[in-house]
C-alpha cells in the first residue's frame, strides 16, 4: 500500500500494468487453467479424514443378518407394484406396520409447467409412504432419513426390500437416539419435495440431521456409487462422504464416486487423467445446478444428504445385500451418535477421488486468476478514460461532448439487454400454448425452441440499440460501456463462484476471454464468430458433448443436439419445480452481460 501512496511509483506501476496488460492477462488465464488442472494431481490434494469426533473414535459392530429376507421382501414388493400398477400403498403400510413403525402416507399432486418428455409426466399424482421408527426415550427432536424411490418398471425393488429389512432390524435395537424415517417416495424428486417442504402431513420427525437415498436394482452388486451433488451445486458436509468411504473400507465394499474407482497410480499419465476425469465430472454435475439424486433437495434445508447407488457391472468381485445392509447399519449407527449437526468438515470441496479432496482454499485461486483478468482490463480502461486524448487545443470541449451522451449510451444497452434477458426468462413458458397452436410441435419443443429463438433474436440487439441512440457512438462511449460490462461480469462471476464454484469457473473460462479482447476495432466477422462460440448457449452445448465424453458415452452430433434440447427443457423444469437457480441466472444476468459485449463489438 505504501507503493500506492507514492504518486511516482503508483504511476510507474499503472503504466507497467497498462503497457503489459495483454501479456499479463494471457499469463493469468494460462495460470488459472493450469492451477485448475493441477488440482487433480494427487500430491497437491489432501487425503480425506474424519473431522467429526462423535463419528470417529467409536467403532460400531455391524450385525445386520437378513439380506436374503430383504431380497424376498423386495420381490414381494415388485409383485405388488405390478399388481397395483404403481406404488403398492396398502401393502407398504401393512408391511411397515408389521415391523413396528408408525406409518403415514402422504398424497401429493403437482402440475408441471410443461410436459417432461424425459420422464413422460405432466400431471403428477402420487403417494409417499413413510414409517417412523420412534427412538425410545427420545423427545422427537431429531431424526435421520433413509429413503428408497419407487420407480416404475423393474428397477429399485431391492432397495425397497433392503429398506424394509433394515427397518425391521433397526426396530429391535435399543440404542437409537434419533427417530429414523423410512421413506418410499414416488416420482423421485417431486415426491421428495412433497415430503420435505413442510405441510400438515409431510414427513416430520423433528429436525432431520442427515438423509441417505438408496438405489439398488440387482441382487448382487459390484460397487457402490456415492452421489453428492444437490440442488444449485450444494454439497453435503464432507464428513458424510468420509463416513461412506470409511465404512466401505471397513466392510470391504468397492466404492466409487462419479462411477470411477480410485486408482493408485497417480504418477502415471493414465492415473492423472483418470482423476482429472473424475474431478471434471464432478465440476460438470455441480455446474448444472440440478439435483443428481433424490437427496438433492435436502441440502437446501441444511440437512446433510447423499444418494448411494448400487452398481452391477461385469467385475469379478461381488457384494451381496447383507453386506450393503451392514454398510448402511454402520453408517446409521454413526450418524445416530452425532451430538451436533455435521459441521466440522468442509462444505465446499471437489473430489478427484473418494479418498482425496480439494478444499475451497485450494481451488479458489484458479478462479481468482481468471477474475483478476477482468480487473486488469477494467484498470486499463479506467486509465484510458482518465487520461485525456492527446489533443491540446479543444480538449475541454471534447471531454464535455463525451460525458454528456455517456450515461445514455451506457444505460440504453444495459436496459435493452436486460429486457431481452427478461424475455428469455418469461416468454418460453408464456407462449407455449400459442406456439403449439401455430406450429406442429409439442409443448416441450415449443418451450425449448422459443427459448432458443429469443436467445438468437437477442443477437439483433446492437441494431435496436443504435436505433434508440441519437447519433453515432463515440470512442469514449464504448470504453465506458465496456468498463461497466467488465466490472459487472467480474461481480457476477465472483458471486456465482462463491455459491457454485463449478458454474462460476466454467462461465469464467468462456466469458473472460470474450470480455478481455472485444472492442469495436477487431475484425468483425471472425470476432462475432468467436463471440457466438463462447456465448453461454454454446458453452452449454459443448458441455453436453464434453460430459458425454467424460462419461465414456460419446454421442453423434444428432444425438448430442437432441440431448442439448432436453437439457434446456430440464433446466427450465428444475427451476420451476425445485427452484434451481441456473436458468434464471443465465437468462437474467449472464446472457444480458454477454449481450453487452456483443453490443460493444458492433459499436458504431
Amino acid at each position, binding site marked *: 500500500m505504501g507503493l500506492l501512496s507514492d*504518486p511516482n511509483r503508483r504511476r510507474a506501476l499503472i503504466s507497467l500494468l497498462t503497457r503489459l496488460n495483454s501479456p499479463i492477462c494471457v499469463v493469468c488465464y494460462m495460470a488459472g487453467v493450469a492451477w485448475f488442472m493441477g488440482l487433480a494431481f494427487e500430491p497437491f490434494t489432501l487425503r480425506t479424514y474424519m473431522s467429526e469426533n462423535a463419528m470417529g473414535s467409536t467403532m460400531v459392530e455391524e450385525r445386520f443378518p437378513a439380506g436374503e429376507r430383504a431380497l424376498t421382501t423386495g420381490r414381494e414388493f415388485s409383485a405388488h407394484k405390478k399388481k397395483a400398477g404403481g406404488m403398492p400403498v396398502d401393502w407398504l403400510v401393512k408391511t411397515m406396520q408389521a415391523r*413396528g413403525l408408525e406409518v403415514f402416507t402422504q398424497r401429493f399432486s403437482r402440475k408441471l409447467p410443461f410436459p417432461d418428455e424425459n420422464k413422460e409426466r405432466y400431471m403428477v399424482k402420487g403417494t409417499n409412504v413413510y414409517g417412523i421408527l420412534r427412538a425410545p*426415550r427420545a423427545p422427537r427432536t431429531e431424526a435421520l432419513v433413509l429413503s428408497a424411490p419407487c420407480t416404475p418398471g423393474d428397477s429399485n425393488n431391492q432397495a425397497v426390500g433392503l429398506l424394509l429389512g433394515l427397518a425391521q432390524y433397526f426396530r*429391535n435395537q*435399543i440404542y437409537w437416539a434419533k427417530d429414523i424415517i423410512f421413506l418410499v417416495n414416488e416420482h423421485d424428486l417431486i415426491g421428495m419435495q412433497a415430503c420435505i417442504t*413442510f405441510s400438515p402431513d409431510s414427513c*416430520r420427525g423433528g*429436525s432431520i440431521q442427515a438423509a441417505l437415498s438408496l438405489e439398488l436394482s440387482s441382487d448382487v452388486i459390484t460397487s457402490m456409487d456415492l452421489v453428492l451433488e444437490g440442488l444449485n451445486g450444494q454439497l453435503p458436509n464432507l464428513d458424510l462422504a468420509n463416513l461412506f468411504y470409511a465404512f466401505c473400507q471397513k466392510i470391504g465394499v468397492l466404492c466409487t464416486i462419479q462411477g470411477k474407482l480410485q486408482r493408485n497410480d497417480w504418477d502415471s499419465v493414465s492415473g492423472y487423467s483418470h482423476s482429472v476425469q473424475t474431478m471434471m465430472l464432478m465440476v460438470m454435475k455441480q455446474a448444472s445446478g440440478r439435483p443428481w439424486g433424490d437427496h438433492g433437495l435436502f441440502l437446501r434445508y441444511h440437512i446433510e444428504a447423499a444418494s448411494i447407488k448400487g452398481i452391477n457391472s461385469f467385475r469379478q468381485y461381488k457384494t451381496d445385500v447383507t453386506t450393503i445392509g451392514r454398510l448402511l447399519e454402520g453408517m446409521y449407527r454413526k450418524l445416530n451418535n452425532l451430538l*451436533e*449437526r455435521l459441521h466440522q468438515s468442509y462444505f465446499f470441496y471437489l473430489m478427484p477421488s473418494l479418498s482425496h479432496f480439494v478444499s475451497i482454499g485450494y481451488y479458489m485461486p484458479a478462479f481468482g486468476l481468471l477474475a483478476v483478468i477482468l480487473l486488469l482490463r477494467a484498470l486499463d480502461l479506467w486509465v484510458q478514460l482518465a487520461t485525456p486524448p492527446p489533443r491540446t487545443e479543444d480538449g475541454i470541449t471534447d471531454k464535455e461532448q463525451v460525458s454528456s451522451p455517456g450515461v445514455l449510451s451506457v444505460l440504453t444497452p444495459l436496459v435493452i439487454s436486460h429486457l431481452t434477458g427478461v424475455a428469455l426468462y418469461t416468454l418460453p413458458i408464456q407462449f407455449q400454448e400459442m406456439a403449439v397452436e401455430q406450429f406442429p410441435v409439442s409443448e416441450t419443443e415449443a418451450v425449448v425452441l422459443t427459448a432458443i429463438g429469443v436467445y438468437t433474436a437477442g443477437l439483433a440487439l446492437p441494431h435496436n440499440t443504435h436505433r434508440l441512440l441519437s447519433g453515432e457512438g463515440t470512442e469514449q462511449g464504448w470504453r465506458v460501456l465496456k468498463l461497466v460490462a467488465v466490472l459487472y461480469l467480474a461481480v457476477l462471476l465472483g458471486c456465482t463462484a462463491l455459491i457454485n464454484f463449478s458454474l462460476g469457473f466454467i462461465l469464467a473460462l468462456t466469458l473472460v476471454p470474450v470480455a478481455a479482447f472485444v472492442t469495436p476495432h477487431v475484425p468483425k466477422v471472425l470476432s462475432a464468430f468467436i463471440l457466438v462460440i463462447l456465448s453461454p448457449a454454446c458453452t452449454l452445448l459443448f458441455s453436453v458433448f464434453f460430459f458425454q465424453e467424460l462419461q465414456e458415452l460419446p454421442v453423434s452430433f444428432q444425438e448430442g443436439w437432441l440431448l442439448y434440447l432436453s437439457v434446456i427443457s430440464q433446466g427450465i423444469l428444475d427451476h420451476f419445480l425445485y427452484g434451481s437457480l441456473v436458468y434464471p441466472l443465465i437468462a437474467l444476468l449472464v446472457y444480458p452481460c454477454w449481450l453487452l459485449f456483443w453490443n460493444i463489438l458492433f459499436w458504431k
Partner: protein
Amino acid sequence: MAAHRCSNCAALLILCSLSVFIVVDSQETTLNGGHHATTVHNPQTTTGTAEQTAEPAVEERRWEATAVEEATPDDDDDAAASDKQDTSAPETVDPSSVPQPKDDFQEELVIRPLHSGDIYASFQFRTVWETDFMRGNKVSHYRLFPKSLGQVISKFSVRELHISFTQGYWRTMQWGQPFQPSPPGAELWVWFQDSVTDVDGTWKELTNVLSGIFCASLNFIDSTNTVQPSASFKPLGIGNETDHRFLRYATLPREIVCTENLTPWKKLLPCGSKAGLAVLLKSEKLFHSSFHSQAVHIRPVCQDWQCKTTSWELRQTLNVVFDLHNSAQGKREWSLFKMFSRTLTEACPLASSSKIYIDITDNPQGEQFEVSPATPLLSQAVVLGDRRTFSVYDLTQQITFGTVRSLNLLIRWKSSEGDMLRPLLHAERYVAGYGLQTGEIHTLMYNNHPYRSFPVLLLDSVPWYLRLYIHTLTVTSKGKDNKPSYIHYQPSKDRLRPHLLEMLVQLPPNSVTEVTVQFERALLKWTEYTPDPNHGFYVGSSVISSLVPSIVAMDTNSTRERPLFSSFFPCKEESSYFVRVYTEPLLVNLPTPDFSMPYNVICLTCTVVAVGYGSLYNLLTRSFQIEEPSPGLAKRIANIIRKMRGVPPL
C-alpha cells in the same frame, strides 16, 4: 379401609377442581359374593356404633389413624387402638393443636396393555399428612411424609408444587392419553402462598433447593425460561386464590432423566425401594423402555367433607411404557418379571392400601388377552372420559400371593392388531422454512370429535432468541380464520424473559386447527452459545389444556345396566373431562459462527483492519501532490542573483 373411602371423597373434590389425576368414582364391585365388600365395611360399622356421638370429621380422621396403626405388622388387639382413640378424641376438636400429626400412605400400580402391543405401567404413591404448614407452623416431627420436602414447603411458603421429569415423548396416537401427562424434560410449576412478598427470589431459591433434592439441573431455571401463565395452570388443591402473580412455571426441555434422578425420588417413599410396589422400580429395566416419566405433586387437600382443616397430599407418580419390540423381543406376552425383572411378595407394611389394577376394558370376555392369575375383584371407574374396567389385586391380602408367596402377573395377548388410535384431542408442532434468518412455528391441534366443538387453552413459552413476529399470528381451522376469544401475550425481553402466548381457541368438530407464527433467529453474543451450538436450541413444549367432551357422553344408546331415569341428561361429571396435552419440543438452529477457528478469524480481521483498511482509507481520503522541499537560504540567495542576471534558477 375408611381411609380408602376418604380418598374417594378427596378424589371427587379433585375432579371438581379439574384435576389431571383422573381417578374418578372408583366403586369396587365383587363377583364372587360379598366377601370383599364386607371386609371393607366391617370396621366402619363397628366403630360407627361405638362412637355415634362424635363429630363426623373427628370420626373420619380417627379411622384413618387406626387404619395406619393396623397396617403395621404389629397385630395388637383392638382395645389398645380404641383406648388411643378415646384419649385423643377430646384433643382433636381443635385441629391446629394436634400433638401427633397423622399420616396415611397408599400405593397403587395400574397396568394397561396397549393396542400397539406395548404395555403401560403407572405407579402412584400417595402420602396424606394431617398437618398445616400454611400458618407458619414449625413442624419438626416427620413420620411418613419426607422431611426434605416438608421443610421445603414450610421454608418457601409453597402452596402447591408440581414437578415432573420425563424422558421420551408420550405417543398419543399409539398409546392414547396418559394418566398424568408431562412434557419431555423437566417441568416445574409452583403456586406460592399469598404471604410471599418476593416471589421471584423465593422461586430462584426454591429451584436451587429442588435441584439438590432431585439431582437435576433445575438450577438452570431463571427468568429467561420462567413464565406466569394467566389461565393454563390453576391450583389443583383447595383454595380459591387464582392470582397468577403467585404462580411460576418453567420447563427445561433438554433435561435428561436417568438413575440419578430416580434414586432421590425413591428415597422419598416411606418404604424406599425395600418393600411394596417400589420393589419393582429397578433402574436397569425402567430405563430400558420407550417412555419414562416420574413426578412429584404436593398440594393441600381437605381433611373431610366440611373442609375445615387441610392436610398435605404428596403424590409420587411414575409412568413407564415398555416396548413390544425392544423389551419383549416382539412376543406379545408381558409379566411383572419381564417388565421389572422382579416379582411382588408383599405390600409396603406402612401402606394402608396397596393395589394393582389391570385395565381389562377392551377385553371383557378375555378374547384379546388373558391375565393370570385371575382375580375375583373388579373395579369400574371413569378415567379420561371413558368408563374403564379393572381387575384388582389387593396386595394387603395374603391370598393374592397364592401358594408360591409371590405375585407375577402375566398378560398374554391372543390377537395382534396395532391400529393407530384417534384420540379426541391431540397436537403436534414443527418449525417450517429454511435458512437461518427466519422461520415459522406451526402448531396443529386435532379435534377428532365427530360433532362437538370444544375450547382449548394453548400456552406457548418461546425463548427470547426466537423473536416472534406476533403480527403474523394466524389461527385457521378448516381453511377459515378462527379468532381466539382470549389472547394473553407477553413479549420477550432480550436476555431477561421469554415470550408468553396464551390463547383460548374453539376447535370445530372433526378438524385440524393450525396456529402459525413467524420468528426471526437472533444472533447471540459469543459467550451465550452453548458448548454444542450446532446441536440447536430447544423450545419447550406447548401446553394445551382443555375440557374434552367425554366418550361416555357420546355413548347415547347405552345398553349398560343403568336405570333409564338416570341417563337422559348427561351427568356433569361425565359430560366432559380435563385433558392436558403437550406437544413435542422443538430443536431450532440459530446462526452459529465457526467456533473452531477463532484464532484464524482474529488474525484475519486484525490484518484486514490494520493493513488493508488503514491504507485504503489513507488512499481514498488524502490527495497526493509532489511538493518541492523549500530551498535553503544560500540557494534562495543564489536564485535571486541568478534571476537578476537573467539566468534560469537552480
